[in-house]
């Protein structure tokens, strides 16, 4: 047990400030524990989102000492005991109150993505896929929709007007998941370029750095999507051939590196 100072942003848009609270922190406590103690004991109207307390639901995103993280997976021991731990709401989204922001734009984007279109199943009606087939997309399917990547992507964070042009990293991950579904039968290249705005990403990798699901967003999702789009625009004839032969697999990162090294 130790008394720690937690400095939490309190207030609504344009009308807020940081307030210091002192709470007892126990062994093993995470930041969310400290915040919930403040809520239960000192400030019952402190707004904060959380659900699973185990890094599974992606509700509790915040900026902790300036670092975008999940509060439930950030141990208090990460920070020096003698200084306050500062907790602020995500900056890229409109503030509702305290630590809660309006992330609804993400759900509007989600609605714009057309659902998966599958190839017909085999003659026995069974959809066969091997463990190897599904391995690549599996990474993307672990996204917990914490929107930390959307929060840090400078294309959106520094230029809110870009939300109309670029879906942002979370939705690139979703599109990569669809693209790399082993039974997928759709062509999303125009959509990726024109609607999703994959071209706006300039590969800074900030999104990858903050992803709590450890998805290699830039390398494994966005760059392959960019390559797909590039294909379409350089070589429509090859695209047609690919369609006739069945869908062209996306090269794995290691193959891409080899290709790049060879050329």
């Amino acid at each position, binding site marked *: 047990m130790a008394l720690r100072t937690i400095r939490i942003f309190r207030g609504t848009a344009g009308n807020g400030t940081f307030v210091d609270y002192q709470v007892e922190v126990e062994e093993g406590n995470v930041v969310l524990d400290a915040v919930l103690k403040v809520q239960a004991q000192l400030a019952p109207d402190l707004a904060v989102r959380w659900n699973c307390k185990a890094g599974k639901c992606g509700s509790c995103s915040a900026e902790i000492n300036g670092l975008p993280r999940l509060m439930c997976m950030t141990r208090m021991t990460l920070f020096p005991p003698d200084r306050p731990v500062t907790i602020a709401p995500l900056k890229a989204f409109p503030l509702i109150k305290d630590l809660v922001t309006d992330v609804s734009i993400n759900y509007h984007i989600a609605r714009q993505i057309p659902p998966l279109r599958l190839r017909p199943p085999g003659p026995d009606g069974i959809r066969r*896929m091997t463990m190897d087939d599904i391995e690549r997309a599996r990474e993307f399917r672990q996204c*917990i929709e914490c929107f930390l990547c959307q929060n840090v992507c400078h294309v959106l964070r520094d230029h809110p007007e870009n939300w109309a042009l670029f879906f942002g990293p979370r939705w690139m991950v979703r599109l990569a998941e669809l693209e790399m579904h082993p039974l997928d039968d759709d062509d999303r290249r125009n959509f990726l370029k024109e609607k999703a705005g994959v071209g706006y990403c300039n590969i800074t990798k900030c999104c990858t750095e903050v992803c709590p699901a450890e998805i290699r967003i830039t390398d494994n999702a966005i760059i392959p999507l960019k390559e797909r789009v590039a294909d379409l625009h350089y070589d429509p004839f090859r695209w047609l051939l690919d369609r006739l032969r069945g869908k062209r697999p996306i090269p794995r990162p290691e193959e891409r590196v080899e290709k790049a090294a060879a050329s």
Partner: protein
Amino acid sequence: MAGYRVHEYDVLVVGAGGAGLRAAIAAAQEGARTAIVCKTLLGKAHTVMAEGGVAAALATVDSEDNWRVHFRDTMRGGKLINDWRMAMIHAQEAPDRVLELEEWGAVFDRTADGRILQRPFGGHRYARLAHVGDRTGLELVRTLQQKALSLGIDVFMETSIVRILKDSQRVAGALGFRRDTGELLVFRAKAVVLATGGIGKCYKVTSNSWEYTGDGQALAFWAGAELMDMEFVQFHPTGMVWPPSVRGVLVTEAVRGEGGVLLNSRGERFMFHYIPDYYRAETAETPQEADRWYHDKRNNRRPPELLPRDVVARAINAEIKAGRGSPHGGVYLDIASRRSPKEIKHLLPSMYEQFAKLADVDITKEPMEVGPTMHYMMGGIRVDPETAATSVPGLYAAGEVACGLHGANRLGGNSLSDLLVFGRRAGIYAARYANSLPQAPTFSGDEVETAANELIEPLHRADGENPFALQAELQETMQNLVGIVRTGDELKEALHKIQELKDRTKRVAAVGDVIYNPGWHMAISLGPLLVVAEAIALSALERRESRGAHTRDDYPKEDPHQASFNLVVSADLQGRPQLRKEPRPEMPQELKKILEEV
């Protein structure tokens, strides 16, 4: 809180977990104008946390499996007081519901020949759980959420429903409020599907989140529907016990399904001492036999670690009480000495991460410390097995909030399949009912006014008790007096305390305003929590035997006569809970035969 906005739908689905999403999809596909309301953001419901898998007799791993065996396992796990019609429908329809998810884009782990892989779980005779590593719920929720969005279903996020509105007898809609703005919302709807999940926040140590305050059970109770089997509360044998802040967080049964064993402080594999007679014939007698079972199921019997949850939870409880527990008051769960680090990380990625990040334990190198945690509510709203209709016309219920399928104890994996099978049925039958009405019944404005005033009251009290403190007292009471092992005297004491808390609830105060105010939200949740707590304690007091998850120290034996009824709680004219024994319908011969033969 004057003025409110009115939204109009054919079917209103309350809850966006597996059951709610599946119901909404079905209702929309029946042509009903459908909306979903949920307390959190979309995709954060409890279902997202489900780990181990979804049970369905797909027979991809064990070709002997079929719906009959699944039916039998479910009934035996539930100590035969399940609704056998639900158990039958569930076992028959689960495979189609899982395959349908695959059509909608879900990607389950695969067998060598490219089909859906299934893993063994407690109480299931065959490997039956389709899974995605230990993140099955995430896959299920994402798939359903995306399907629902693609059908154009409206979603009201961070909105709580606080009353079902009726005309004289039928459902006419529901009243709710937006948590982010405090704005009052009235839904005019011909049918309402309750899919609000469980009640975990009645207890102190639980795997459930703040959301599980028994809202749906209370909404139904207040609307005149019936609750049943409320004495059956499942304690999962393996929750984390350390550090204190994660006490209760779930450690999936898949750890045992993949070979993990339970050990006491002396290093003994103690489950061999706790095999009930009922399961002796199908449980291994020695560790050697148990270990062989993982590779050769035909010639060996199941390890005792995979007995149903109630048995394992009581065994762990007994070991700890006997002084053979671990330093932090649990027992050990060891997978490290049973599987290679690579396998563990592949099969149980989120367990690996959870222990590494939250407890500084590397589960590929050392055992975990685990102990029982309140996990699942077998009881809930009484429904018609085919249509998921409650006794109130227009009110439907599915998922954890409903009851019947699991009887006295739920088998792992049977919840996710429950959500899909009965979520779909609830959606279909709610839509058909709604489509049969020319227009929504009307409710009285006074009713809305009264409810709205009650809602806002805690904010107007100048000073009063802290709602969080009141909830903590209730949790303490339920944990200590209505827990794994119960006695008549303690249950009476609990009822007394619940009465006192009910009175004090009328005096809680919330500081602040209506905008995203958790203290106020907690004050509102105390009502449902107490309805549920009282129903549990009353039913537990009435069932004078030990059966499945309900263990009475003063009536330690199962009494065959008490298999003839379920306990039903409903509101009397003053709104107080009243109990009655509902005789169980006779099971047809052919189903009885399955129980005897398979």
